[in-house]
């Protein structure tokens, strides 16, 4: 394989999104879980509580594993907007949550979509935000307040 092909392949694995045909043209931030998760939809209020660490298990009792993107990404911006926090407040909030015994660790912050996919494979109770245009097979997109990304009335942009 030439160096050029290696660049494309490895770059794709690490940083390039691989659009799902069904949702490739939609806009906004998608909330995704593992395909093993039976959950199909969530309300915006529940989603906020999940990412604040106030809801820690799915309906079947499976622990929720929070997976977030690193600073500076659109998914992170959408998360902070949902929580009504600045980046600094978010960090302090999670230190406090751990100290109060309401969380074992800060949500995992990952630098790429490939890592998010991998994390959803490892943690069947995982939930994360991805750009709706980059949803991949293996990810289950949750309806938020009854809407999918791209629907009018979808609350996460």
């Amino acid at each position: 394989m030439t160096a050029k092909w290696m660049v494309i392949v490895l770059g794709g694995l690490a940083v390039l999104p691989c659009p799902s045909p069904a949702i490739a043209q939609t806009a906004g931030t998608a909330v995704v879980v593992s395909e093993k998760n039976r959950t199909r939809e969530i309300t915006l209020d529940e989603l906020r509580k999940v990412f604040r660490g106030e809801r820690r298990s799915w309906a079947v009792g499976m622990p929720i594993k929070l997976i977030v993107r690193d600073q500076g990404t659109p998914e992170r911006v959408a998360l902070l907007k949902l929580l009504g926090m600045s980046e600094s407040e978010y960090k302090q909030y999670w230190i406090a949550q751990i100290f109060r015994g309401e969380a074992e660790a800060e949500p995992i912050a990952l630098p790429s979509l490939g890592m998010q996919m991998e994390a959803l494979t490892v943690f069947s109770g995982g939930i994360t935000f991805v750009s709706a245009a980059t949803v991949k097979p293996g990810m289950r997109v949750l309806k938020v307040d009854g809407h999918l990304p791209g629907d009018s009335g979808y609350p996460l942009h």
Partner: protein
Amino acid sequence: MAHIHKPLLGLLLFATTAFGQDAGSSDQETIRLLVQQVKELQQQVAALQAKSSGTPASAAPLSQPAEPQPDAAARAAELAEASLIMHEVHGIQWRGFGEVDYKVLDQRNQPGLGTFGFVPGSAGNFFTGDFDLFLSSKINDKASVLSEIVIGEGDAQTFNVDLERLLLKYEYDDHLKLSFGRYHTAIGYYNTAFHSGRWLQTTVNRPLIMEFAAEGGILPTQAVGVQAEGLIPSGKLGLQYILEYGSSDTVRPDIDGSGEIDDENNGNHINLGFYFRPDPVPGLQVGGSIYHDKISDIDFGPTARMSQSIGNAHVVYVAHGVEFLNEGFLIRHALEHSNLVFNNPAFYSQFSKRFGRIRPFFRYQYINANQKGSFEDVGLYYGPSFGARYDFDDNIAFKTQLDHTARKTRPDLNGLQMQLAFTF
């Protein structure tokens, strides 16, 4: 491209998953390895890009606006990995909290009162307060251990070690979470939200009503026993409960400088609390609790026992940079085999708003302890505090606070306290 991409992707996912499972003594360890793998891949990509285009590795092209550039991603991955390494040792998460304080009063501190390292008889001095080490470890998906060890400063730069909390926690689901061990009692909000690390607090100190008993506080703030808490199905109301049964043993120094120590010899306590976190107003918590046990008071005889009931109601809002804490208490002591009842009402209210790195705050506190009862050293104690907290970064904060405290039988007390609080 698709033909090459999919097998390689599958191979990589298989390899990383298998590696993660082999190495998986903990979730965090798995993630650390995954982050390391991606970092290495990104470095390879950057190197190959530089080789094929003849440009330096740092000048990687933009692939997608939604994804960080390889350099940025690599730096983020390094930071994430460093953070995990820094705060995890063999699956044990740790964090430390420390502080350095300077406090000055407009009159000499009462002899015999050396809480938090403030020198008895002094009008002003430096001290280090509490040095706090927090450890937690996940045992499995449902169980974990939490501990908080505090090295506290006493009189004349003496230090003592205190196991503030040690809890084995078991989380069945959101409706039932059990904890066994030494805990901070869930009387109201403050004692559950703020523990020993001052960095977490906006103000330099706790309101006196929520102060730890070892520092002169009047509530049974610590106990050993069992806690059950969880969510009660209530739709958007977000109703939660907490139930505690345990043994407290409150030993508190009188805060009037007499040098006396009161040992309450508490019997087993029961504490039940409910609070709402309504969905429509994120950050709002409204609730209350009722605590009951029996205590001794040597002033009423060596065998005298009193029934102690503590009611709490609170309204708290913490969101969008605003912190608004309001709690009211009624501590009722009833001497057994007697009609003697002593009521001790108290409240505090605290408001702060963050503006960038600075957070000005105001607090007002009030305690009206019955001077014929067990808290005769406190009596009527009230007054405002105001100041500001400045966050240098996400780990270091400087706080300054002015206090004016009116006391019924003694002169009003004015004080200035500055604190450098940090976490690491």
